[in-house]
């Protein structure tokens, strides 16, 4: 309900525009309600059951309060309580045995509160035995067959004793006596309309009360379901509870029955207010006071007082509630202009018309054979509202379903957008990584290959022959292979890069008759480094290359030993690669020629700077028995170039 209320137009046009809008909406609605009133009145006329007038007995004499006088039925008694001395109606009818093909019956379409019918002094019908028949708010008819032995040829006497215990005056409609076949259809019609139909409505109410109560239990924040459920439960109790027939002890139950109508009508007003999205005002509780008062007095006080209170307080409360409800719906129509408010408005108008009609009947302003229709119309309205609410609940569920569907679609769309942007981001990251790699590759090529090619050009220009150019060109090729090799994905296993290097170093050393001793001290070689990048590999391999080149060029070594191992440090394992030769050592070699010393010094500087760039520690020791280069690998290779810039 709240979601519907939220949809109500919140913007209130100001001043004259607002008044115009109000008129433009209210006038058609009121005209429509007038039409509904007319249709309802016509409908009530049509509803009036036809009785077999051929067999009507209207002329009776009544003995009331010790006085006997002739009356024409239908007749209202003067008293509201005649249990001590019930009025006795005496009439006569003629029976011709030759006309009578079947049995005869006596048919009483309407009476209140109870009757005892006797034919020729023998009781044939006592309605007090059927509690339902005696309720003044029901239009229960009664029929009784007259035993053939009772009927006399010619004139017969019929007496009707009318028991009245309020809250209304006693009433006796026209009595019909005649062949059962002629009376029965009229009785059946009235039974259908005034007995069966209310039972059907009450059953529906009971079912809807259960459904609405479940809805309210599941959705506590929408009390409108609960309010309607309570109203329906009250209606059902009122319809099915058996009122005891006086003078049997006045049960407390009758108080409940009396109180039900005002409380129900107040609940309906609460429903209307909540349904149309207003807040229930605190002083609105006053609307329940009459009903509760009747109930409390009924529980405490004796029989006449609650009934009187009901007449004085209860019935006007019902009218007031109906009127309030009509106002609420009219306001809702003006504000919302939706199907729900129009429908409920029309229904309230119908019930209000029926109630007014009943009031006129009670006050004996219109003669309507005392047929009460407001209870019937109210039940019909409640059933309609309940069905509407259930329908709306189901529709809300459908909306939730479609909302869930939309949500799924939205989520999918968002997911796709996210995926696209993620792919874009990934693409950009890949491009950035590629650019970085390219920069490094350029620098690596510049460092090695470029310098060597330039050196080849210079040597050729100066007319050098043979060995020097060959060495430079071989170094260039070796470097190119190193760069290409290091670009390969080795999955963080430096051993794979060292495997290729071993081949190259062996090939490099073979012409100089230098043996390469290769020793992997630990089974797995070196620890895996998932962060290992091609440029780390290039730096490490170049350091090793430099060490081997020194051994070849300056140390005059016969053996180069490469040892690879994993050591356990305080923070975990780390790799250690050492290259040792058995040459003269560069300290003594450095003294031989100045040019050689300069080259060696530059080589050492290069090695150190390369080690620093990839986070490794370089330890170099050299003496006359040989040179030993120890490269301690970091536990984690740095992401960025540590000596960049």
């Amino acid at each position: 309900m709240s979601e519907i209320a939220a949809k109500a137009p919140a913007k209130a046009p100001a001043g004259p525009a607002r008044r115009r809008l109000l008129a433009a909406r209210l006038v058609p609605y009121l005209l429509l309600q007038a039409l509904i009133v007319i249709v309802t009145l016509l409908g009530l006329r049509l509803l009036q059951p036809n009785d077999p007038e051929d067999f009507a007995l209207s002329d009776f004499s009544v003995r009331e309060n010790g006085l006997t006088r002739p009356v024409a039925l239908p007749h209202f008694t003067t008293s509201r309580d005649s249990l001590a001395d019930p009025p006795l109606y005496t009439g006569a009818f003629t029976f011709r045995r030759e006309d009578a093909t079947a049995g005869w019956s006596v048919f009483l379409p309407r009476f209140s509160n109870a009757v005892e019918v006797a034919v020729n002094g023998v009781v044939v019908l006592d309605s007090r035995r059927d509690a339902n028949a005696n309720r003044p708010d029901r239009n229960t008819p009664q029929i009784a067959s007259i035993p053939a032995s009772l009927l006399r040829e010619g004139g017969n006497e019929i007496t009707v004793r009318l028991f009245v215990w309020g809250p209304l005056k006693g009433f006796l409609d026209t009595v019909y006596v005649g062949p059962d076949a002629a009376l029965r259809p009229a009785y059946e019609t009235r039974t259908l309309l005034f007995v069966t139909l209310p039972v059907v409505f009450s059953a529906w109410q009971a079912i809807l009360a259960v459904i609405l109560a479940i809805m309210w239990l599941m959705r506590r924040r929408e009390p409108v379901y609960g309010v309607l459920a309570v109203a329906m439960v009250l209606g059902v109790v009122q319809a099915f509870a058996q009122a005891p027939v006086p003078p049997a002890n006045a049960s407390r139950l009758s108080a409940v029955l009396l109180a039900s109508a005002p409380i129900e009508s107040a609940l309906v007003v609460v429903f209307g207010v909540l349904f149309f999205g207003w807040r229930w005002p605190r002083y609105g509780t006053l609307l329940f006071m009459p009903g509760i008062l009747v109930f409390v007095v009924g529980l405490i006080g004796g029989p006449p007082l609650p009934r009187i209170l009901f007449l004085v307080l209860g019935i006007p409360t019902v009218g007031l509630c109906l009127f309030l409800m009509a106002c609420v719906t009219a306001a809702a129509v003006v504000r919302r202009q939706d199907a729900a408010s129009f429908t409920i408005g029309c229904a309230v108008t119908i019930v209000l018309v029926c109630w007014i009609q009943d009031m006129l009947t009670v006050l004996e302003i219109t003669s309507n054979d005392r047929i009460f229709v407001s209870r019937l119309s109210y039940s019909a309205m409640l059933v309609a509202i309940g069905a509407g609410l259930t329908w709306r609940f189901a529709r809300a569920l459908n909306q939730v379903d479609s909302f869930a569907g939309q949500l799924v679609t939205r989520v999918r769309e968002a997911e796709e957008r996210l995926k696209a942007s993620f792919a874009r981001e990934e693409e950009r990251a890949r491009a950035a990584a590629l650019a970085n790699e390219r920069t490094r590759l350029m620098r690596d090529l510049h460092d090695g290959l470029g310098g060597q090619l330039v050196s080849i050009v210079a040597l050729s220009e100066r007319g050098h022959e043979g060995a020097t150019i060959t060495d430079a060109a071989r170094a260039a090729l070796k470097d190119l292979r190193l760069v290409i090799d290091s670009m390969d994905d080795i999955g963080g296993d430096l051993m794979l890069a060292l495997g290729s290097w071993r081949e190259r170093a062996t090939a490099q050393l073979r012409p100089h008759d230098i043996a390469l001793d290769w020793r992997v001290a630990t089974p797995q070689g070196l620890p895996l480094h998932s962060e290992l990048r091609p440029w780390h590999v290039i730096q490490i391999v170049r350091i090793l290359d430099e060490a081997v080149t020194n051994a070849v060029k300056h140390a005059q070594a016969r053996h180069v030993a490469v040892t690879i191992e994993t050591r356990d440090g305080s923070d975990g394992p780390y790799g250690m690669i050492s290259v040792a030769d058995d040459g003269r050592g560069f300290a003594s070699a450095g003294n031989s020629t100045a040019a050689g010393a300069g080259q060696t010094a530059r080589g050492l500087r290069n090695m150190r700077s390369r080690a620093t760039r990839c986070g490794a520690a370089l330890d170099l020791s050299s003496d006359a028995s040989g040179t030993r280069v120890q490269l301690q690998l970091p536990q984690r290779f740095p992401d960025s170039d540590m000596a960049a810039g």
Partner: protein
Amino acid sequence: MSEQGETGDPITILLVEDDAPTCWRLQDALVKAGYEVRSAGTLGEARSALASGAPRVLLTDLRLPDGHGVELIREMRQRFPDTEIMVISALGDEESVISAITVGATGYLLKDAFPTDIATTVRDLVAGHSPISASIARFIVRRTQGVAQNSAEPPRGPALNTARLTPREIDILWGIAKGFSYAEIASHLGLSRQTVPGHIKNIYRKLEVHTRSEAVFEAVQQGLIKL
């Protein structure tokens, strides 16, 4: 000094190389070692040289003026299955070597190898010992891992079916990739040192794609082609 085959005849080599200095260099090294060498600068020359009979060994460059060396290797494998084939490569990079292996080559020769190494390599090849480098071995074993991991994107480089390699052969390749010598590998794996080269030749043969239909079949097997 003359290198001779089982029949006693000198071993014949067809050398296909378009760069004249490189060609001279290789030819010198091989002739000095006692081989009988015929050289060709183009695919056409190579084909006409084949008209007079099959050589024992074919050494070919891949990029030739009138075509690709891979075509020549494929033709040789079909016409003369007994001829040993090696590819001549400047850098020994996997791109060129692996593509040659898949059409039937069983090794490669670096263009700048020392003359003694050139002769040794050819001798070993004729003796049934196929050379393999650490980087080629690494490429192959990385590819076996790629297949095992079932990675979504196709691996870079030439297509290679490693499905038929045995775990032992893969172990050998791992050893080579990590720089171990044949002797070290043999002792680690409990093999005889002499059997390792034979294993390597088997590996090359398993990587060879024989026919077009087989290539398609294997591509489907590896999920490279979706039918």
